[in-house]
């Protein structure tokens, strides 16, 4: 006992000494307020006179019945919702009571996204862009979560979160420019369509490999925590990507390193053709959170208010308490995985129609609005016409625009141009000068 208490004293002194030394060098980076105490990790003090297990690896009681814990997938973690499928508030205390202006904005952003999706999907079918991914059915997850964040919060996405960017104000011209890979593309034409990014809107550029953003988000959140400026990080991914090793890594790191981070899983039922019962055997993604020591919740992803409430509270606590939160938003992928997919090969039209007609985030919100007299048939008609018009105009502008200068093939590999790359660039130019009729130079800026 004496040994334990003197050890504690010693560690206490060390901790004190560390604080002193660190304090001398501290700027506001080193405010201890936000940090939970995890100094020299003292495993629990030994006391073998007690019958309680003394193992460093777990804090628990002994048991003398042999019993395996049964995972509960029949009645799994419940789904939090605010509205029923008809858009009626179930428990008035959960209505976030957002202003008419805010709710109309939600609705308009969701429908604008939907309209843009339809037009760009068609444009791929017509050979105008090479590839596209729609967001049908998941608009609620985007808008609800984006609205609950601060504009400064850093977003790491997977690829089906265009509504988050749209909510933050990414112009239609920029969406189009990226899909067309034209000279206005902020990404300089380097990536396939829908790989959006925006430094101004704090949306990290999308990359194709799945789940790689998850441990990155943990690292960014850690750095943001050290800056101590009331900023959070959110990381979106699908239930398929959650099977990747990177997901496990990201969850574990964010919990052990105490990061102000929201993990937002869009569980939409399919990873291309793979249904969830082939993706996991446990109770979805939310059930994994407690395994990492993470606060977790499952929400109705088609209920924009439920998504909003959960994200808002998670954000508040993540920043205040420096710990990660896991939100599993249940939803349904109404569209195909991408323009390279035909989902009728692996699911029935009836199934898709159910979600499209009976449980859609856009229609549920519309019912909420019409019930309050905030939105009429006329409003709907004129908004649809207007949003289609603005999308078409942006589309036509993007169509006419030249592609970026091929010089941009060689830049940004490193921050600086290297001699070797320079030589390769010059060699390409000489070649293209000689064989110019075989290269589509007219499509590109000079």
């Amino acid at each position, binding site marked *: 006992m004496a040994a334990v208490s003197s050890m504690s004293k010693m560690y206490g002194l060390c901790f004190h000494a560390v604080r002193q030394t*660190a304090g001398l060098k501290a700027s506001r980076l080193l405010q201890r307020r936000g940090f939970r105490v995890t100094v020299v990790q003292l495993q629990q003090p030994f006391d073998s006179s007690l019958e309680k297990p003394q193992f460093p690896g777990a804090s628990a009681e002994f048991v003398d019945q042999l019993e395996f814990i049964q995972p509960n997938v029949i009645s799994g973690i419940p789904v939090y919702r605010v509205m029923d499928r008809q858009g009626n508030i179930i428990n008035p205390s959960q209505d976030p009571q957002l202003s008419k202006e805010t709710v109309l904005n939600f609705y308009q952003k969701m429908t604008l996204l939907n309209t843009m999706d339809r037009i760009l999907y068609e444009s791929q079918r017509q050979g105008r862009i090479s590839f596209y991914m729609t967001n049908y059915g998941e608009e609620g997850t985007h808008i609800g979560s984006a609205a609950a964040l601060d504009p400064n919060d850093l977003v790491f996405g997977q690829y089906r979160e265009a509504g988050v960017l749209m909510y933050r104000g990414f112009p239609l011209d920029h969406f189009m420019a990226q899909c067309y890979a034209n000279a206005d593309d902020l990404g300089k034409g380097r990536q396939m369509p829908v*790989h959006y990014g925006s430094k101004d809107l704090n949306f990290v550029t999308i990359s194709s490999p799945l789940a*790689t953003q998850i441990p990155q988000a943990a*690292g*960014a959140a850690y750095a943001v925590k050290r800056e101590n400026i009331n900023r959070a990080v959110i990381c979106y991914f699908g239930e398929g990507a959650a099977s990747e090793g990177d997901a496990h890594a990201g969850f574990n*790191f964010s919990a052990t390193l105490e990061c102000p981070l929201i993990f937002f899983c869009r569980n939409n039922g399919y990873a291309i053709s793979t249904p969830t019962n082939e993706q996991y055997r446990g109770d979805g993604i939310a059930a994994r959170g407690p395994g990492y020591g993470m606060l977790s919740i499952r929400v109705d992803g088609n209920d924009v208010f439920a998504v909003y409430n959960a994200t808002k509270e998670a954000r508040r606590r993540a920043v205040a308490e420096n710990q990660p939160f896991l939100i599993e938003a249940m939803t349904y992928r109404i569209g195909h995985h991408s323009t390279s997919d035909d989902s009728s090969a692996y699911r029935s039209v009836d199934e898709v129609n159910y979600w499209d007609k009976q449980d859609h985030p856009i229609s549920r919100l519309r019912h909420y609005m019409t019930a309050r007299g905030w939105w009429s048939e006329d409003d709907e008609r004129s908004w649809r016409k207007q949003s289609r018009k603005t999308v078409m105009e942006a589309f036509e502008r993007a169509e006419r625009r030249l592609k970026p200068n091929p010089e941009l093939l060689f830049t940004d590999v490193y921050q600086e141009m290297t001699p070797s790359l320079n030589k390769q660039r010059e060699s390409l130019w000489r070649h293209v000068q000689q064989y110019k009729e075989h290269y589509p130079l007219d499509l590109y800026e000079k």
Partner: protein
Amino acid sequence: MATCPNAECTKTIKIFAFFMCEVLHFFNLIGSPKGPTQKMNLFQSITSALDNTLASDPTAVIFGEDVAFGGVFRCTVGLRDKYGKDRVFNTPLCEQGIVGFGIGVAVAGATAIAEIQFADYIFPAFDQIVNEAAKYRYRSGNLFDCGNLTIRAPWGCVGHGALYHSQSPEAFFAHCPGLKIVIPRGPIQAKGLLLSCIADKNPCIFFEPKILYRAAVEQVPEEPYTIPLSQAEILQEGSDVTLVSWGTQIHVLKEVASMAQEKLGVSCEVIDLQTILPWDIETVCKSVVKTGRLLISHEAPVTGGFAAEISSTVQEECFLNLEAPISRVCGYDTPFPHIFEPFYTPDKWKCFEAIKKMINY
């Protein structure tokens, strides 16, 4: 002279013997830093670089497995006590997580120094390094980058490391545009090159020859200084054969150069590449134009090893200057063996024999 920790390893003893000459290189440092020096071995010179970094850059953080108590090779001893638990911390045992996390720290604008415990274990992080870190700037149109990321890993043979504690994986990463790969040959280079990697605005992998952690001792400046990346260093000038390598093998080549001079009257030019990617093509080619013969040596297996890249480029640029085929003295195309290490490594006798063949071609 301190005793070598690994008495059976004759190679270690031999390498160690040549460190006394390294003191001369203090004067060759670019922008020779003034100020006091201290006797430091390789791991201490790394600690010194990290200490300098944490002192001058308040955003810098160091993380990886076991770095908190000082690291399995003692490279981070004392840093957590000095700078705080939020800046020098352990991560869970997960290399893909360590690098992914490091990328995120860098993207958020802080300086990230990630440690992978052995280069042999870097492969779970391969996707994060190659698909993410290397391509971050390019794919985002320069909106985002992880230039603030440096990955450090112990590298190369150690006498008894076998398959999984001896690897030199630089060739895997050399094939990846967007990365920088740097390998020092001793404490003075290590500190200067590591500080350059940390300052460099591109993701860097810094491989540290583990066999030299304790064996290599030099007078290293206490103040920070940098050695430029992508600049090879000519350690000794010569006229008959160019010898190129990096890391531990440099010391073998220096010994081979002496042997060649003594026994064959052959004058060798020894070049330490230092940066594998982007590599200093100009210095190597200029040397081969002068000598007409090139020998490249590395521990990593010969097929697809970095010597192949150097050889291919040099024959493109200097074909008519070559007096003999370019020679590669490298590891065999086997996993790195345990008990057979003395036979596996590209030792001085194999290099010497290769020089003889080139001279008599």
